[in-house]
């Protein structure tokens, strides 16, 4: 009989999780939003997503061969980067845009720092911001749902002050009735926007999956959304406490950013306390950019800025080691 007793050091608890399993679970949770995006904007969106993923994987392999490191392309992290980058594009950009963005994301956003786990910024957002600064005319050319006509996002309309005719926001303070179905349209994704960010419902389904499986905790996303909502409620309209917080939460990349990008394990704080600070910081910056900044949307910049602050948050929220004063 074989000896079944194994004597070993701690830790004895074992969980059937690995980096790559979690990565692929995140990919699964992102599928509904992608399907919704393809349904809303047409097959062109699907091609952009595929191009983004393939070029991200290709860049990862090429750089790992070039630098003679272990090839870890199947761990899913490059897949997620390509996917998220494509989700952050308008649906009718030229085909080379996701390719350039993915190459930049993986090469500059991740591999330059030494690969997965070493990057300071969320790679997909690095790619998005690079594209945004390089080719703003493509990155802001959003199309109407179920159509190829260009249209602006709700947040851009808001910034330009055109929302008064289209959909309300100032109407609230002027006590006029709200156009019916506005929030439903925003929730289901019948609005201009990026491929993956428009259908809030699909994103929430994916996020619920991640919550139930325990891959993300509430600390970052909920504080993020709550802070952004609170600030837009307080300062969003002319008077105090009259802003349309639901409109702000349901439009733009806030939900996609809060649940899938701000929660990136590598670039967010480790401790619970730190994660709450991180979420609140993201919310404040997003609201400030949306209400007073030059851009209509600030979620990506907010997350990147808080990524930069992550090491210092980690330093000040270190858990007390048990037994030490």
């Amino acid at each position, binding site marked *: 009989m074989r000896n079944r007793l194994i004597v070993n050091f701690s830790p004895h608890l074992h969980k059937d999780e690995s980096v790559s399993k979690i990565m692929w679970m995140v990919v699964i949770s992102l599928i509904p939003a992608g399907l919704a995006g393809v349904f809303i904007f047409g097959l062109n969106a699907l091609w952009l997503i595929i191009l983004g993923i393939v070029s991200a994987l290709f860049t990862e392999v090429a750089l790992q061969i070039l630098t003679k490191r272990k090839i870890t392309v199947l761990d899913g992290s490059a897949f997620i980067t390509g996917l998220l980058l494509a989700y952050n594009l308008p649906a009718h950009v030229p085909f080379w845009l996701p390719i*350039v963005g993915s190459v930049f994301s993986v090469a*500059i956003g991740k591999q*330059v720092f030494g690969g997965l786990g070493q990057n300071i910024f969320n790679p997909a957002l690095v790619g998005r911001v*690079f594209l945004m*600064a*390089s*080719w*703003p005319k493509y990155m802001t050319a959003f199309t109407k749902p179920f159509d190829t006509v260009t249209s602006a996002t709700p947040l851009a309309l808001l910034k330009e002050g055109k929302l008064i005719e289209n959909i309300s926001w100032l109407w609230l303070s002027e006590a006029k009735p709200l156009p019916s179905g506005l929030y439903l349209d925003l929730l289901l994704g019948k609005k201009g926007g990026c491929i993956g960010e428009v259908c809030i419902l699909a994103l929430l389904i994916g996020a619920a999956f991640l919550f139930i499986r325990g891959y993300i905790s509430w600390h970052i996303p909920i504080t993020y959304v709550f802070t952004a909502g609170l600030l837009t409620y307080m300062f969003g309209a002319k008077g105090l406490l009259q802003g349309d917080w639901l409109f702000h939460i349901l439009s733009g990349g806030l939900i996609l950013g809060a649940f899938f990008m701000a929660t990136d394990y590598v670039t967010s704080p480790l401790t619970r306390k730190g994660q709450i600070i991180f979420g609140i910081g993201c919310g404040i910056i997003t609201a400030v950019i949306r209400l007073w900044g030059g851009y209509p949307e600030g979620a990506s910049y907010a997350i990147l800025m808080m990524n930069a602050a992550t090491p210092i948050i980690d330093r000040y929220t270190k858990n007390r080691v048990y037994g030490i004063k």
Partner: protein
Amino acid sequence: MKKLFHEFLKGVIKENPTFVLVLGLCPTLAVSVSVMNGIGMGIAASFVLLGSNIIISLLKNFIPDRIRIPCFIVVIATFVTITELTMKAYSPALNRALGIYVPLIVVNCIVLGRAEAYAQKAKVINSLFDGLGMGVGFTLALILISAIREFLGTGKLMGYTPIKGFEPAFVFALPSGALLVIGLLLGFFNILKNRKI
């Protein structure tokens, strides 16, 4: 003669001010938007470097050690003033493009660095070649960086369009693009350097 040539080459390759010593990054970041600006800045800084190296090397026995930095600055500022007035007289367009960065050569750390680290200890002829080499190295580095940035950022090279249909990435015309290009080039030259050994 060979030794002097070696002094010259050192500044261009082995101790390139931008890519190896990483000095003078402020003007490098600021003016490397177009190749013309890069060349202008490189020549201006080279002239100042050459002049200050020679004069400081000549005066090295007369400068008291304790107040050497102010003395160096006075010498450097003299040459910068000559450069700036000449530039204003003969190519006002370039002077406008480079703006504040021409007078700021006074505090360019390449110039002061060579005076402090080399010219105040070396023979005049050696200092001359050192200054020349550093100037050429700085100019070449600026041309390289500004060529990459001008092409990627505006799709042009010296005002011409080499590839039709190329969509310029505007970020390279911004300061962030300059940091990106310089960082990647530094990494690239480090790879080359490590491979040789």
